[in-house]
């Protein structure tokens, strides 16, 4: 456990060191830059904003983590996010309920949208034995253009000079207190539920073991195809939920490129987190710190915010590669100690 934390911390520090070298080469002051980065994202009053920004990262990250840990290679988070966002928007355009009912209703619609889209991939597997690795990627494209069409034609805001829908009903806006958006509460709840399912439920146990060794689990009586379907639907719902919250917490309408790069960042977060649920939360927040802070960094110092993308990629590379390397490193260290004992 300690070793696991060490690997992650060392990996992140090394990545920062490399980032510093890049800045030095270009003539920036790395200490100043890093100070501004964290000041902008972690100062009191800013941290609430950073937390709110972490919501789609953590949710899509958990979607990818649960899928990868259970076997299905669901890479459809971008498409599932968009479909979730679209369905929630449509609900918000045509239905108006009191907020206490409206918000859960739209969130359910968002999850439904995501699950619908991952469900298509699951059905393609069931009927034609097509790998979800391919189909989810392809479905991303379809979702991309389908939602683009939807906001250009049927749900287009009349007279807008930009592809977007009108605002959803006010009752569906996630309440905000200062910089703190209540979508964070939804994220924390989702995290609790997912952690419990994965680590405490019978289904989660079966998913984890099937992810590690599906033949063994099958022989042990686990219903592999049913679990596959459930995991696909659940992880689709998580990505859809992220999409719904992006609409409900942010612009309150579906605008072009609303999905941004959240879902791919989420997949990256799942990889750094080695598909662990808690680590996904930690890295999701950390990536949000970097992304929020990059704005401040660019404002105050002259360092372009694109540097943060470099930093993120380097963190992923070092932590993921380091995980394997550290294991061998510690093993060798132990062997050398034994050797010395034997000679003495």
């Amino acid at each position, binding site marked *: 456990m300690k070793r696991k934390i060490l690997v992650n911390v060392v990996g992140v520090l090394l990545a920062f060191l490399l980032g510093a070298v890049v800045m030095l080469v270009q003539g920036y002051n790395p200490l100043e830059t890093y100070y501004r980065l964290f000041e902008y994202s972690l100062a009191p009053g800013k941290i609430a904003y950073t937390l709110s920004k972490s919501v789609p990262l953590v949710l899509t990250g958990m979607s990818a983590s649960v899928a990868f840990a259970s076997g299905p290679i669901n890479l459809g988070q971008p498409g599932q996010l968009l479909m979730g966002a679209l369905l929630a928007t449509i609900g918000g355009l045509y239905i108006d309920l009191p907020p206490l009912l409206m918000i859960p209703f739209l969130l359910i619609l968002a999850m439904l949208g995501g699950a619908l889209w991952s469900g298509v991939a699951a059905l393609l597997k069931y009927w034609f034995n097509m790998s979800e690795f391919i189909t989810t990627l392809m479905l991303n494209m379809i979702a991309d253009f389908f939602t683009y069409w939807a906001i250009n034609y049927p749900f287009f805001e009349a007279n807008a000079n930009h592809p977007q829908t009108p605002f959803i009903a006010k009752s569906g806006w996630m309440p905000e207190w200062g910089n703190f958006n209540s979508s964070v509460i939804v994220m924390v709840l989702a995290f609790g539920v997912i952690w419990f399912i994965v680590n405490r439920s019978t289904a989660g146990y079966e998913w984890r073991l099937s992810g590690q060794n599906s*033949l063994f689990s099958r*022989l042990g*009586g686990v219903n592999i195809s049913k679990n596959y379907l459930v995991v696909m639907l659940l992880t689709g719902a998580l990505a859809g939920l992220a999409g719904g919250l992006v609409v409900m917490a942010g612009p309150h309408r579906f605008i072009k490129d609303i999905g941004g790069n959240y879902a791919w960042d989420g997949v990256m977060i799942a990889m750094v987190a080695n598909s662990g649920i808690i680590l996904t939360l930690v890295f999701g927040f950390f990536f949000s710190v970097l992304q929020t802070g990059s704005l401040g960094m660019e404002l105050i110092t002259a360092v372009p915010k694109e540097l943060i993308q470099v930093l993120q990629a380097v963190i992923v590379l070092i932590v993921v590669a380091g995980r394997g390397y550290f294991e061998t490193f510690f*093993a060798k260290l132990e062997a050398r100690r034994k050797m010395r004992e034997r000679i003495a």
Partner: protein
Amino acid sequence: MADIIEMDRIVKIFPPSLVALDAVSVKFAKGEIHAIVGENGAGKSTLMKILYGMQPADSGEMVYNGKKVKFSDPGEAILAGIGMVHQEIMLIPQYTVWENVVLGYEPVKFGGRLDVKKARELVKQKIDEFGFNLNADAKVEDISVAARQKVEILKLLFRNVSVLIMDEPTSVLTPQEIPQLFGELKRLRDNGHTILFISHHLEEVLELSDRITVLRKGKKVGTIKTAEATKAGLAQMMVGREVIFDSIRKNQTAGAVLFQTTALNYTDPDKRPRLIDVNIQVRAGEIVGVAGVEGNGQLELVNLIMGLIEPTSGSIKAVGEDITRKPILEKRKRVAFVPQDRANMGASISANIAENVIMTHHRLDQRFTRWAGRILDFKQAASFTDEVRRKFDIQMSSGEAVFKSLSGGNQQKVILGRELLLEAPFILLDQPTRGLDVGSIEYVHQRIIDMRAQKRGILMISADLEELFRLTDRIVVMHKGRVVADLVTEKTNVTEVGYLMLEGAAYEA
């Protein structure tokens, strides 16, 4: 006799802390057959791999022909005259015998073209020189496993190797083929070759070798002359205590039929028949063995019983119910299963021990779940893991430890414990002792006998005839997908079963 090889205080540590060889010193004399015996994990193969340059030693020295040597890869060792025949045969099946033998060491004509005529002649000469019964022009895919092994040996002889290392050469052979191999090895020795022979079959070692070195847990126990050795004495040296080898069955009358396959047929997706009209019966309190050379339908039989594949026709009945096409969980209420492939079928090696132990139980036994089966009870899982640990004498730090941190024997005990505690009336064992050391084998055998005493029905597939004769009441022999004989163990013998395995037809004495 002069020593040709001297290995001095060889140490090998596999990270992080497995001491595979602990300052092992051993001398091999020129022109002897020197057996290296020991349980699994004793360090036999590691010692030979170091000699052959496949693995570096962490410390220690080697002297070969009076000179200090260190081989950094097998190529150097072969050049110096030391060759190794591995357990798995590594030849190109589409090539002929002579092509395989000369590969990488081809005689060439002017311009670097292969001198086909000369190459073929040279190989034929070698075959005659050593009296091997081989056809140089046969394709390797068409010849028997025993013949392929000869090709491997010939390959090394062609490179003028004077020291031959054989890693468990008999493990791929049938009982009938072993004497021939031994004859050839003895002839090579008389020719001045030195043969180092790794084995854990004591009978073979006693029959073949001149001297024997025993390793136990990475340490050398001693080197003795074969003429002065006894089987019991060697076994004791190997395990550090006495082992019994006789049949351990007690007389007991079998009960009702618990398991039955009726006219079972299976044709694989390539339209090849794999199982043909297989009828096998197992009664309560009876151990039925399935003998056969690997690849004669045993794998398909196991997969059919467990539901990984579906039969073309026929049925499988267990405990009075037709389970042919039942979901696996439904089968598991009646069938306990110990697979031969621990890492792929028997466990999830990266999960922890407790998670491995409760598999299947978590669905069949309500005490492991709450909320109508939806939530796992980890306290129950932990106490059950402890129960398995106590009942099956498993060496482990805790149930939280990852499964792959266990030794092979302990891994098998965890799997065995999980399956036997399922309380299923019928038990399917597929090579339950493969790759285990003598101590663990003994333990597993005792547990199997206990199950028989509890009136469970056991079907055991095994490639080890000694094991089958030790445990079973009946032996069915499989050959090319058919059951060619159903024999009462007490009324048959190893020669007859071995002959049936090979020929598929009745043996005529």
